[in-house]
């Protein structure tokens, strides 16, 4: 069983969001990292780029395959996790902590309501 923290919001493409005031911290779920296998490379967005929700924001590559990462909410990228440059395995080892990918200053926090709750995300995984 993969871990799905109840206090986060999720996208059907397996990103999670943790809200810290008007900042959305973005990562990929435990389920996603497990399905991908060992990550070896993360291509990050640049700080300052502005995304609309659903835009392609980056790529995570495992030994097996590459997967696109989508911006779960609209807004400006204000930080990226530079530790992943040398330690992409942090995403495997701590998907909800040290393995976060980037932070977005949210343009519209109302978009969060359209994301999945932990229970809804669990249902989606179960139906895959």
């Amino acid at each position, binding site marked *: 069983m993969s871990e799905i923290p109840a206090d986060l919001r999720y996208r059907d493409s397996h990103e999670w969001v943790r809200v810290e005031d008007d900042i959305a911290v973005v990562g990929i779920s435990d389920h996603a990292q497990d399905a991908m*296998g*060992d990550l*070896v*490379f993360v*291509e990050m967005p640049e700080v300052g780029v502005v995304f609309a929700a659903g835009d392609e924001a980056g*790529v995570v*590559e495992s*030994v*097996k*395959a*590459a997967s696109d990462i989508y911006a779960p909410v609209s807004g400006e990228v204000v930080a990226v996790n530079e530790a992943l*440059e040398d330690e992409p*395995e942090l995403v495997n080892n701590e998907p909800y902590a040290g393995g976060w990918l980037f932070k977005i200053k949210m343009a519209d926090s109302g978009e969060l309501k359209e994301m999945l709750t932990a229970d809804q995300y669990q249902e989606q995984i179960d139906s895959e």
Partner: protein
Amino acid sequence: MGHRTPLYDAHLAAGGKMVDFGGWDMPIHYGSQLEEHHAVRQHAGAFDVSHMTVVDVQGGDARAYLRHLLANDIDKVKAGRAIYTCMLNERGGVVDDLIVYKGDNDYRLVVNCATREKDLDWMENQAGGFAVDIHERPDLAMIAVQGPEARAILEKVLCEAGAKAVAGLPFFGFEYVGEWLIARTGYTGEDGAEIILPGIKAEDLWQRLVDAGVRPTGLGARDTLRLEAGLNLYGNDMDEDITPWEAGLGWTVALDDADRDFVGRAALEKQKTEGHRQLLGLVLEGKGVLRAHQGVHVPGGSVGPDGEITSGTFSPTLGKAVALARLPAGTTGTVEVEIRNKRLNARVVRAPFVRNGKATYKPL
């Protein structure tokens, strides 16, 4: 549900993540492909390769038949040695690549599992006029034990005669110990052995290897290990439309005996005169991962891609992306690889990338 090897339950017990592989339920990894990869480079790993197809060829014309069927010449090695070869179609394209274990009057072939049916059909079709018996051996299992410590551990784990065989075998040598075939062959670029044994004995050997500290290693690491070692994968690096010349396998084609008219010979001789593409190594200079089917641009080349990656991965040993790519003959220096609409520089090199745990590639 796919086919299961005799080690299926052992894989589940070891936490194997099972995937479909050519119709077989096989472990892709047991938790971490990277850790398994490193275990083979630094210590020892065990692979279940029982899904591969073992075929025994016997009979009065077995030698003549195999000299007709195969592009390499089994006469180049003596009994007790293995030889790597392709079997070709009339166009010189590769039907499959295989290992032949040459006995005194008998031959054991190991061919790929994904190509099993067409291989067996092809071998039967080519047998007309030869007194040969072609006999598949689904009763046998196959375990590869690879890594710098592999043979030392096998010496402790096997029976006395088996241990003696493992200790004394030359590279690509093999010995029958009872029903077990013990060979100093492999697909990782490390020392080690492959053991073909009765299926009912496989679980016991596997358990003894694991108890002795050998790490169960899945098909994921098998692929990154073979690619680092510059070893081709059928279906990726060559297929029925690709000749050995175009797949970096010219060294497995024996043309010395002009009287030996093996299948595909005429087409190979023609292409050798006309020229052909080459399979070369690439090492990515920056960050990213090389993957099969990415386009490659050579300096002064055409607008579209001049070549294509046939196998690519992130090399855990080197910490950078490596690939095999089919490129115009004589390509050297730096090329550009198309990765998600960007062009990244890669160095053309001579594979293997890694042998015996160390970087071995040479810039071209």
